């Protein structure tokens, strides 16, 4: 991979830091009037998801990371690995480990497209769509007429996630959920 110098650092650039692929979040030039220039850089470690700050001497460089985001549909789980297929018509499949799946494991639904991040052609993270429609498989019976009142109850969805839903929701209904906050949005 090519090397990138601090002046080429911009949000979204993928680089290697301490052996892990990282995505640059922010790059700020720090330079006292006549002093030496430094760059304060915020990076997201793509393996752990954690964001950290580092300082580099201006002109220093980092090796680029062979990282790609691809859209893939979820297919099935064989008990060990989770299988996805590219949506570009190539039918190419990737097997994803539980570790790479992270929290997305509770938002899995067949035939829904996810963003799979590949590093050296290996899946390291899976991002669900912002909104997903899932069926309620278990919740207390809905309260008739209670559509305006506040109050909520837990509901288990077909993907395994448990979310707070309004009291009027019944088992078997399909709901629209915001995967970023894990919150109920509306009936689908």
């Amino acid at each position, binding site marked *: 991979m090519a090397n990138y110098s601090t*002046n080429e650092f911009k949000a979204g650039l993928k680089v290697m830091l301490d052996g892990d692929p990282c995505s640059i979040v922010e790059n700020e030039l*720090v330079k*006292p009037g006549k*002093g030496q220039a430094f760059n304060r850089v915020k990076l997201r470690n793509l393996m752990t998801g954690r964001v950290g*700050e580092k*300082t*580099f001497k201006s002109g220093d460089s980092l090796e680029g990371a062979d990282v790609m985001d691809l859209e893939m549909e979820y297919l099935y789980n064989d008990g060990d690995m989770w299988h996805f297929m590219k949506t570009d018509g190539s039918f190419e499949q990737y097997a994803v480990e539980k570790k790479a799946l992270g929290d997305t494991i509770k938002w899995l639904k067949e035939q829904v497209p996810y963003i799979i991040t590949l590093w050296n052609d290996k899946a390291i993270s899976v991002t669900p769509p912002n909104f997903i429609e899932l069926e309620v498989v278990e919740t207390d019976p809905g309260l008739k007429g209670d559509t305006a009142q506040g109050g909520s109850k837990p509901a288990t969805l077909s993907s395994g996630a448990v979310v707070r839903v309004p009291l009027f929701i019944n088992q078997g209904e399909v709901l629209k959920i915001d995967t970023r906050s894990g919150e109920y949005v509306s009936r689908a």
Partner: protein
Amino acid sequence: MVIDWQPSASIETLRERARLMASVRAFFAQRDVLEVETPALGQGGSTEVHLVSLHTLARTDKGQRRLWLQTSPEFHMKRLLAAGSGAIFQLAKSYRDGEVGSRHNIEFTMLEWYRPQFTLEKLIDETATLVMTLLPSFPGPVVHYRYRELFHTYLAVDPFTTSLEKLRDVAAERAKMPAHALADEGRDTCLDLLMSVVIEPQLGQYELSVVTDYPTSQAALARRHQDADGEWVASRFELYLNGIELANGYDELTDAAEQRARFSEDNAERRRLGLPEVDIDERLLAALEHGMPAGAGVALGIDRLIQLALGKARLDDVLAFATPNC
């Protein structure tokens, strides 16, 4: 591909900018400080080791010559002072290569002014008054700090006496750099880094912070004097507001021989670091030789002050066309 041709600043902001520029001119007109315009191109450039000058080849009366885009209007303005101009100010386009960020732009506007016979204290007062004139809400009291005191308060190190090894460790740790990252760096780089990463963000919060008594190695074009502790320090100040460095002022060096020595030291350091040397401004040295009146001068990043006055997040927001869009 969509080409982004739109201005970086809104037209409304540019109107506000013009209004603030007019108040700057009114401020100096009222004080009988003459507005001047000096060239952006010069036959000499700044030798400062960490400033990267842009230069160009021009066909002149002497044939093809390398001309330097000025990193500030300082040298030309000092030649005017030596010629007897008296107090002068300028809103000058200045150029520093590679400086792009939320507080930097390669081409920027410097408000620079010189006050013959002024002491540094008197110029600090005038600078603070100007800043308050331009800000819509009063930024608070003017609070003075000594460089040394700030390092004691925020870092428990002494910029003059703490060992270089210790400074490197503290700077690498506080800036989140690998332990060995500063192994080749000198005191000033460590101090600069600590100043920008740790101290600067704390300064100018609900006040105008003035910092004085810098190490002599950071004197640039300032005189030196002994401080209250008997330490030799640079007769220089910086002004901070909202954690942003706004202005840098000097009790101006007028000694031609001393100035030549500092230029040569800069170029020697440039050779050591493998950086290109910069042509020394012989005309400035000749002017100092002739005699420049003693006094104080200050350079203020007017784009940054406008940014603060208008409450904008980035320098780009107050520039018609910032570097990424120029």
